[in-house]
């Protein structure tokens, strides 16, 4: 993979580097009990996957407030992945259903903001699915790469 220019280019302020190869910046909200453990498994199993995802561990996917997602988009995320437990497996019984409803509703609102709804992805990944985590994140990165940078800068006029 080499240097991740999307992330490093931004930090170094080297815009020309970024323009050459667009590397999507993905924020991943991962639930403590399933998806984060799944991502951990992917790591300990030495499964290779692309480094564009920035994982943030939350206790439950339903802890992710729609405000967090909008904040991420505003501050430079090109995509947001939310990972939760499979239906029926939620550590808090029904947190993942709440997440599902919020994500579906937020997707509709994102359209009005001119943000492609598929920049937001919700996936159920269990603690034993390290391989699935790697696959989901790789595919999502490629999907976002095709969509291009989001760049939510505001116009002053």
């Amino acid at each position, binding site marked *: 993979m080499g240097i991740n220019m999307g992330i490093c280019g931004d930090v170094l302020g080297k815009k020309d580097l970024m323009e050459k190869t667009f590397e999507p910046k993905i924020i991943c909200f991962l639930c403590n009990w399933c998806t984060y453990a799944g991502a951990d498994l992917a790591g300990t199993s030495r499964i290779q996957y692309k480094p564009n995802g920035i994982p943030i561990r939350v206790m439950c996917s339903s802890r992710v*407030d*729609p*405000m967090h*997602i*909008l*904040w991420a*988009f*505003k501050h430079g995320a090109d995509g947001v992945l939310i990972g939760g437990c499979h*239906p*029926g497996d939620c550590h808090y019984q*029904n947190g993942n*259903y*709440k997440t*599902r*409803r*919020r994500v*579906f*509703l*937020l997707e*509709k*609102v994102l*359209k*009005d*903001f*001119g*943000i492609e709804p598929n920049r937001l992805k919700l996936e159920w990944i269990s603690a034993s699915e390290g391989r699935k985590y790697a696959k989901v994140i790789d595919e999502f990165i490629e999907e976002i790469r095709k969509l291009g940078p*989001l760049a*939510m*800068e*505001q*116009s*002053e*006029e």
Partner: protein
Amino acid sequence: MAKPKVAFYWCASCGGCEETVVDLNEDILKVTAAVDIVFWPVALDFKRKDVEALGKGEIAVSFINGAIRSSEQEEMVKLLREKSGLVVAFGSCAHLGGIVGLANFWTKKEIFENVYKTRYTTVNPDGVFPQEKTETKEGTLTLPKFYDTVKTLDQTIDVDYYLPGCPPPPSLIMSAVTTILSGKLPEKGAVLAPNKSLCDTCPRADTKPEKLIMKEIKRPHEIMADPNKCFLEQGIICLGPVTRAGCEERCINANMPCRGCFGPAKGIEDQGAKGLSAIASILGVEGEEKMTDEEAKKMIDQIVDPAGTFYRFSLPASLLKRKKMKEEVK
């Protein structure tokens, strides 16, 4: 001692905020007894040059309503800021962008195309659009610049206090005026209304069940709402949980749900996102384990125009502020 000077001004607004000042009724006499109104375009014949003639900070308080969407409004509020000791953002539009702020879901180009060209009540075969400068025999005519983005007052000038509401209720205005005149000023940037959420002061609060579930969504015109029952329990979207109290529950008492004009309760950064989250959390919980994604989507689809519903009064003050501008529009 000379009475303190007060100014009222309007920007992108409907005139309702002016109306509510008049709604003070006899109390307005108390206000005029205590202050001199030096500028109030809707009611008094003072001109811009009268404001320009005042000294820096000579106006004690300027009450400015309406959002900022044109160069004229921007110039005027900057002038008033210079001449005023205190500036109060008066009403939802100045505070959060208000209803006019919903224009941020479009661009200037889209709005002009719609209003001056494609609207079926518009006849404009030559495709003439408003111009900032027009040359005529008699000379050059000018119009203010129309901006792409509607802004709140505090995105344009420094604002000392906020009076929320669409419009702010007279009692709140009176208490704000009295507080300011008394000299016991609250902390700068304060919203001059309670910090609680509307649910906290709602007359129907007691009817809210322990576990609130919306089985399905009803729009206010689709059912006769029970006047003694929590709107959310009846399936009507009410933004009470995320909206600041202090409005005297005018809508609730008229059997209409809260639409969020008082803006976010203290601690909420984005009223729309929080409202969306609150409603999605209590919608159609039963039997969800067996629901497929498509069925869940269908349930969510019952909410008509979610962006307009949840961001009705607060889009320009929200996290994203507006629809993404495409490169070519800039």
